[in-house]
């Protein structure tokens, strides 16, 4: 049976960014239809590491990340639950003198972008975190970064958007979208047709395909993170931890499980499947022990992956399409979009309602791939 909907804004993709956009747009009075092939927040938004971090980002992302940071404190007010967000701080570790030099250079640049990082020397790092292994020679701390539960945040935005009046359709796979001169028409499996004045492409790993429908160049590669978690252990890893090079990262949740990741799993957007890979998990385990030797022997009880989109320059595409100013893209978060999601939603809303955004997103223009 075919169904037709007419709306101000159609959104393809129910990740955190899409749902946050739906929520923001409803608050400004626009009608919204959001379509997701599965369940909202169950894709890349729901399977990532859960890092809520500014440290280590490309400087181009820092204005957007800075805008996102206070939204995490306000989650209960915004979406009705805290998503288990905690400002535990984020520590980036140096495993060599060269790493330490990299951290120093980054800290100087970050300061110019308003992000204060604290460099920690070899003795101080061991005093502060005595559970770190001997290969660690120093660190950089962003005390106000944190972590959250990715399984909860995206769905919470989706429910908040629905409560605010957005028409959210799950298990509704978009098959095509086109521009008819005045409006966009989005067609989903099952015969649903959505006519909209605006169209937002937040389709994650599939966003490159959507962009292609409109002739926009989008070299989106598939990125499948490789994540695992241990049995619950007494809490001792007080910070979220990353390393120079990014090949392993780890955090411990309040309940005691140690979440870690690193390297790539396997994923295929045509099959809509992703899997962690045993060799990747085993490599991450070895690096984990190097970083935190006490974790040797802890039982890994689960591993997972998911599908994200990665751009060649590892920063996202955010902004209007090349040929259709009322087509907005926001994709290619390259494995680190979780922290940004709530702010991306606001920015997309501003672009539609106000015609401009107060956040500097110039670096994310799709024109860079022309």
């Amino acid at each position: 049976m075919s169904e037709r909907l007419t709306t101000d804004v159609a959104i393809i993709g129910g990740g955190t960014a899409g749902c946050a956009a739906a929520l923001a747009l409803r608050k400004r009075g626009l009608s919204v239809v959001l379509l997701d092939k599965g369940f909202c927040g169950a894709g890349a938004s729901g399977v990532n590491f859960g890092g809520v971090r500014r440290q280590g980002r490309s400087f181009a992302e820092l204005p957007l990340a800075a805008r996102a940071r206070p939204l995490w404190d306000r989650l209960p007010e915004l979406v009705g639950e805290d998503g288990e967000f905690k400002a535990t701080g984020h520590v980036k570790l140096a495993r060599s003198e060269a790493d330490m030099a990299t951290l120093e250079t980054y800290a100087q640049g970050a300061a110019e972008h308003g992000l204060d990082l604290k460099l920690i020397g070899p003795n101080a790092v061991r005093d502060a975190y005595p559970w770190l292994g001997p290969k660690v020679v120093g660190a950089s701390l962003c005390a106000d970064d944190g972590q959250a539960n990715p399984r909860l945040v995206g769905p919470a935005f989706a429910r908040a958007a629905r409560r605010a009046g957005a028409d959210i359709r799950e298990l509704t796979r978009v098959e095509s979208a086109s521009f008819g001169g005045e409006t966009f028409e989005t067609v989903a499996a099952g015969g649903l047709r959505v006519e909209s004045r605006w169209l937002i492409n937040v389709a994650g790993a599939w966003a490159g395909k959507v962009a292609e429908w409109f002739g926009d160049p989008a070299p989106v590669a598939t990125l499948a993170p490789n994540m695992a978690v241990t049995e619950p252990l007494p809490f001792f890893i007080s910070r979220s931890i990353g390393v120079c090079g990014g090949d392993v990262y780890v955090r411990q949740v309040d309940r005691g499980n140690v979440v870690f990741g690193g390297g790539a799993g396997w994923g295929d957007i045509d099959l809509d499947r992703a899997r962690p890979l045993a060799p990747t998990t085993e490599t991450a385990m070895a690096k984990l022990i190097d970083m935190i030797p006490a974790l040797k022997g802890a039982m890994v009880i689960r591993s997972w992956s998911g599908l994200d989109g990665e751009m060649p320059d590892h920063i996202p595409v955010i902004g209007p399409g090349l040929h259709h100013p009322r087509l907005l893209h926001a994709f290619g978060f390259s494995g680190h979009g979780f922290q940004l999601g709530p702010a991306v939603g606001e920015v997309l809303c501003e672009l539609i309602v106000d015609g401009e955004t107060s956040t500097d997103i110039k670096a994310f223009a799709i024109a860079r791939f022309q």
Partner: protein
Amino acid sequence: MSPRGQFVRLAERPGAEIHFTIDGTPATARAGDTVLTAILLNRPSLGASDFTPHDRAGFCLMGACQACWVHDAEGRRRRGCSTLIEPDMALFTKWMPPHG
């Protein structure tokens, strides 16, 4: 006085007596006992469970429920129902990080 064991041995066991410790307390078992049997012949449980108010004592005894893990002095995890007790094993029911 040590608490009563949960398990009761019904069949005579000819094997050698094995001495081991649970959380530092000496205990004995017989060759052929699993770690789970060895502990539950001496104690009512395998210690606290992670998230329920009741202590755990294993449940399925066939490697499915994962409720009988303990660890040895080296931090190596041992599934109680599928590991045989060995002389001088030092078993612990609660893992603690080395740095407090």
